[in-house]
């Protein structure tokens, strides 16, 4: 992904480390790197979050706007994902370089949000067939240090948790036009239900072993990786293979088991972190860190 060049000897070193369940940064196979989470940091967005997973830095902003529902789904709102791989992250993203990766991530997010069990778009409907909320989820990749999928999904879930959708007071039809009246109080908002939104877990195969949260160097050593979208209760919302290699069916079913387990843990950790962050924000004088600490 990121342009890391490794020699054969370095690759073998990483491979041996994985075989002995001791990776070169001291983690075991199923450990994540430390994750930092901050919410509500962009004033102009309805919801925002920043996740830093070791060297991977993701900033997500959610904007809510009013739109017309799709004609085949008149009682549903819309959600759209846009990933921007800026050339800041790695020179490889310059020009059209990051485009494929960006489409891959946004497509995968879309398919993992597709089930009404994970995110019910009906809650975003204002007036059937006429008006609905549209959520623009803009994902900015500020730094790229491996495992983008997982970091992006954590940031998206946090940003959606933080999103405030204004309450609509009255909806009236005036001839063919809609007359919407929003509440005058800017704090009169409702929050989205994020309980069943999945977190993405990337499983990378190095040698004969599956590891989670690969660093950029480890990604370079692997031929095949699988991304799973796992919800809080261990259901799988989406699966996709993301690299050039192929997998044996046995490896795949192992990956499912490991991925579901790790995913449940990740969701739980995120939930706790969100609650902590919420508390910090609600305190009288929330301790402010620098924007990008």
């Amino acid at each position: 992904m990121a342009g890391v060049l490794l020699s054969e000897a370095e690759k073998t070193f990483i491979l041996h480390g994985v075989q002995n369940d001791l990776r070169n940064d001291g983690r075991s196979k199923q450990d994540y790197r430390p994750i930092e989470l901050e919410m509500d940091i962009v004033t102009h967005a309805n919801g925002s979050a920043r996740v830093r997973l070791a060297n991977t830095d993701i900033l997500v902003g959610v904007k809510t706007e009013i739109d017309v529902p799709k004609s085949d789904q008149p009682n549903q709102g819309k959600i759209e994902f846009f990933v921007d791989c800026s050339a800041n992250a790695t020179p490889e993203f310059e020009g059209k370089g990051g485009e494929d990766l960006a489409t891959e991530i946004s497509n995968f997010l879309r398919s993992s949000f597709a089930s009404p069990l994970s995110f019910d778009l009906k809650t975003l409907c204002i007036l059937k067939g006429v008006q609905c909320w549209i959520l623009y989820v803009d994902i900015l990749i500020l730094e790229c240090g491996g495992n983008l999928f997982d970091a992006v999904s954590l940031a998206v879930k946090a940003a959606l948790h933080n999103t405030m959708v204004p309450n609509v007071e009255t909806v009236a039809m005036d001839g063919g036009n809609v007359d919407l009246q929003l509440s005058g109080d800017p704090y009169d908002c409702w929050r989205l239900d994020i309980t069943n939104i999945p977190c993405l877990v990337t499983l990378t195969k190095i040698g004969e072993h599956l590891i989670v949260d690969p660093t950029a160097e480890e990604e370079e050593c692997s031929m095949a990786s699988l991304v799973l979208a796992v919800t809080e209760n261990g259901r799988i919302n989406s699966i996709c293979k993301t690299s050039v290699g192929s997998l044996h069916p046995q490896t795949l079913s192992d990956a499912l088991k490991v991925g579901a387990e790790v995913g449940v843990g990740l969701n739980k950790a995120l939930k706790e972190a969100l609650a902590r962050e919420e508390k910090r924000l609600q305190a009288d004088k929330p301790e402010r860190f620098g924007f990008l600490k």
Partner: protein
Amino acid sequence: MPTDNRRIQGPEVSTPYCLFRCSTENQGKIRSSSPDFPPVRKDGRALLEHRKIYVKTGVVSQAKGSAYIELNNTKVICSVFDPREIPNRVEYSQHGELYCVLKFAPFSCAMRRAHQQDSEEKELSLNLKRALEPAVCRHEFPNFQVDIYVLILESDGGTLAASITCAGLALADAHVPMYDLVTAASLGVVRGVLVKDPTEEEEKVCREELEGINQNHGLITVSLMGAHTQITQMWQTGSMTTTCVSESLTHLIQSCEEIYPIAQRCLVKSVVDTISKKKISEQ
């Protein structure tokens, strides 16, 4: 957005009429037939019965290799062109690349498709590429790319699976060095009931969640290299438990293995035909 003046442009906003027609009549039909997917489906198949497949190679004379696949109402055509140098690339790449473009014909679906690639087509193209990459000996043509164009003439469910099988055959027909043939199959889950090779209508039911105790629903497509039993791509949407996914996986691998000899026979036939033609011309 650059506009295309050579093709018919629809008005900026238009709605297909079938939305208004289906809303009561047709949806009712799906609902009444779907709740538990009666053992016999609308088209007379059993739940775990694949549609009949027709495959043919060498359908486009201008292309290096081509193939056509038909699963009842799903019709896909694919052509593969000679390797050429990767355009606009400065660095040397050790492995050759596959350039996949998947396109729906404007009249292939119930809704009219635009001429420009939309996001769904881009997603399917990427999945197609990921499914074929492991099977091609890419080190044989460094710094070159092979162009694979897939056109869906008619879409009635299982389009990705049909495209992968078709493109795999077209690659083999184009004499691109490969480790193995790729075949793919799709499966739908609704209320925990598994349905092999769902049609468009059934896929739609699988995408929605139906109220019930068993909330598993969704679609899975798997592509397999038969001789090596290696899964080259797996693509799932919906919401299922891990047990449901593993169960579907077993069925899908079985389907892929069933399709494998059909594809093989098709290739053998094309070789035999070429040789006999050559003999006639020599005489």
